């Protein structure tokens, strides 16, 4: 595109980085929060303030709950739109499959299943016609946790990380996928731009001009966490490869189906129901047998995922998967039983090389392992990514604002407004949601929707505020929007801690002596956020005041717009 590869890569880095940076900010921030999604869940759902629980007994506890479970009204509605003719009554639907899923960090249990419907699909290729049901239960009692007590971590922040909650045509997944590709390209082009990579590791000059310190920090965070960021963007793409490159559903559909059938024949796990009703054998002895077999192989034996296919049919199977707490690779070592007799049909064989690599990088991304230090490293890595993107925005603005002020262009101002919205505005929205979670009465109908409204509404307010309070950038000054919003972060974070103490009684002076770290950890992180925000706000306000007194006299032209190359060479 330009005279040299390096200049082309600089163009790519600057412009793709700017446009997709806003999306990447959300991916990194909510990804970092998702590292502690289960802890956020616990903070947000006071009914779950107890210890993490193992998979409960199926026969005594889960079976009756499953039998009570019905198809979810939301999915009834969604399925009704996909089929010809009216759906049968919700109460009359027969279960086709059941699942229960837990991790070593979950006090409550996720369960769900599919219910068969006989309707023909509108789209003949739509071969997965089931209505789904799901709920969260207290695994000690089987009591349902109401849906209005939303698990904010795993139910809202985590899907935000990979889908942006834009479900129409899977648009969110595609935007995030594009952002991940651009992240990879930004890392490659960043390395091409900077020839003194090693020196970047040790360079941070906080006392220089904002532009210089921002670039130092951008390089430092980018280089320090480079392998981490590369692996995460790449493994994120690989995890959703089936969405991004659906060759198995299109060009190779016949091959994919043939493979599924062969696999079913080879493993003895029937692909389809027999259509003959049959009574299920007790499941608990199957769990005991699975644990015995794992124990023989010297593996930790907690059940992570339990799946029953073709429920109440002669072809019923029960699959029991291990919780992967003791290794990085996400592999369940599944053991599969005949549902009507309890005999072992098949054990998952050791992975092939390709599957092994895939399981390793998937596990690396999804971190089901039990290792708290590593978990914190993930969080810090994610936050380093946020810092890298945020300082990228700041550098972009600082570099251009004087020139734009002279030319009467408002480009730098709008970039700054969007940067404020996505950096501090997003944190405000998150904290507003946590505060709403503690303020809204437990019995309020549609409580979960109100929480969501608090999130989006406060983000829109942050956008409006950012658009208004970045006006001084037109005169090449520092936007007051930054310090304003950082102060707001500080207040909201402190507010969330106080609200938790008042509304749940699980204040820090309770949770710390009790060693109830999931909730104490969130509170302590919120306090740290509040304290850090005060420091940042004061510093930014000083820079802002300085920029007001300096701006009219400061006639020295800034570097020419367009390229970071000249600047970065001097770094």
């Amino acid at each position, binding site marked *: *595109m*330009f*005279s040299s*590869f390096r*200049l*082309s*890569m600089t*163009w*790519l880095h600057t412009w793709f980085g700017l446009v997709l940076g806003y999306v990447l900010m959300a991916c990194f921030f909510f990804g970092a929060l998702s590292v502690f999604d289960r802890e956020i869940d616990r903070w947000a759902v006071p009914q779950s303030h107890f210890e993490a629980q193992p998979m409960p007994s199926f026969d005594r506890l889960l079976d009756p709950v499953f039998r009570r479970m019905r198809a979810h009204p939301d999915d009834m509605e969604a399925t009704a739109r996909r089929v010809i003719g009216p759906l049968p009554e919700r109460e009359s639907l027969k279960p086709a499959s059941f699942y229960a899923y837990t991790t070593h960090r979950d006090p409550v249990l996720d369960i769900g299943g599919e219910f068969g419907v006989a309707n023909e699909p509108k789209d003949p290729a739509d071969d997965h016609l089931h209505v789904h049901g799901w709920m969260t239960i207290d695994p000690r009692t089987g009591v349902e946790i109401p849906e209005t007590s939303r698990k904010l971590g795993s139910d809202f922040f985590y899907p935000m990380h990979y889908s942006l909650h834009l479900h129409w045509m899977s648009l969110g997944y595609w935007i995030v996928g*594009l952002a991940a*590709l651009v992240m*990879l*390209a930004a890392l*490659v*082009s960043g390395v091409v731009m900077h020839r003194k990579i090693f020196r970047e590791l040790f360079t941070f000059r906080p006392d220089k001009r904002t532009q210089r310190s921002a670039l130092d920090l951008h390089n430092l965070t980018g280089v320090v966490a480079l392998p981490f960021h590369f692996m995460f963007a*790449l493994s994120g*793409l*690989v995890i959703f*490869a089936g969405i*991004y*490159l659906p*060759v*198995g559903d299109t*060009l*190779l559909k*016949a*091959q*994919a189906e*043939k*493979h599924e059938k062969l*696999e079913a024949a080879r493993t003895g796990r029937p692909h389809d129901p027999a259509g003959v009703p049959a009574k299920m054998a007790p499941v608990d002895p199957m769990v005991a047998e699975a644990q015995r077999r794992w124990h023989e192989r010297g593996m930790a034996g907690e059940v992570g995922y339990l799946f029953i296919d073709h429920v109440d049919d002669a072809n019923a199977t029960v699959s029991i998967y291990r919780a992967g707490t003791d290794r990085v690779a996400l592999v369940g070592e599944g053991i599969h039983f005949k549902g009507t007799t309890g005999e072992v049909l098949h054990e998952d064989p050791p992975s*092939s090389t*390709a*599957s092994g*690599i*895939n399981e390793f*990088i998937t596990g690396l991304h999804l971190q089901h392992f039990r290792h708290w230090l590593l978990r914190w490293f993930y969080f810090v890595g994610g936050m380093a990514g946020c810092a890298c993107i945020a300082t990228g925005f700041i550098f972009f603005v600082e570099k251009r604002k004087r020139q734009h002020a002279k030319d009467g262009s408002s480009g730098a101002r709008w970039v700054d407004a969007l940067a404020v919205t996505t950096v501090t505005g997003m944190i405000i929205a998150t904290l507003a949601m946590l505060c709403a979670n503690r303020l809204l009465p437990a019995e309020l109908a549609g409580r979960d929707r109100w929480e969501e409204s608090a999130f989006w509404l406060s983000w829109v307010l942050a956008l409006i505020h950012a658009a208004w309070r970045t006006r001084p950038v037109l005169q090449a000054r520092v936007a007051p929007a930054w310090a304003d919003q950082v102060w707001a972060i500080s207040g909201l974070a402190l507010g969330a801690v106080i609200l938790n103490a008042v509304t749940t009684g699980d204040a820090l002076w309770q949770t710390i002596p009790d060693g109830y770290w999931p909730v104490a950890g969130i509170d302590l992180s919120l306090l740290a956020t509040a304290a850090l925000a005060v420091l940042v706000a004061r510093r930014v306000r000083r820079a802002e005041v300085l920029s007001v007194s300096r701006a009219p006299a400061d006639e020295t032209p800034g570097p*020419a*717009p*367009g*390229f970071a190359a000249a600047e970065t060479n001097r770094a």
Partner: protein
Amino acid sequence: MALARHSTPHIVSRVAASLLGGYAFTWGFASLGITAQLGVGVDYEDAYITVMLLAFLVFLAVFCWAIAAPRLSKVWAVLLGGGGAMTATAWWLTRSLA
């Protein structure tokens, strides 16, 4: 600056080539990569996983190349032509495999 030499249509075309052309090429790579392995007897799942592990690195490479390459017409030709040719070959292979 060098940037000024490029017209808006050029930039739009360049970006479209890098993303849409890059996607078409990656699609071709993925479908041909899997079918070619099936042809030599590799298990479907292994073939699929191997290709998906590599596909996004291929996309990354052609994406960067599409931005850097001097001649835009060549970029479009290689990405669309290559992607189309690989997809067509994969389609032909699936028919002869079945």
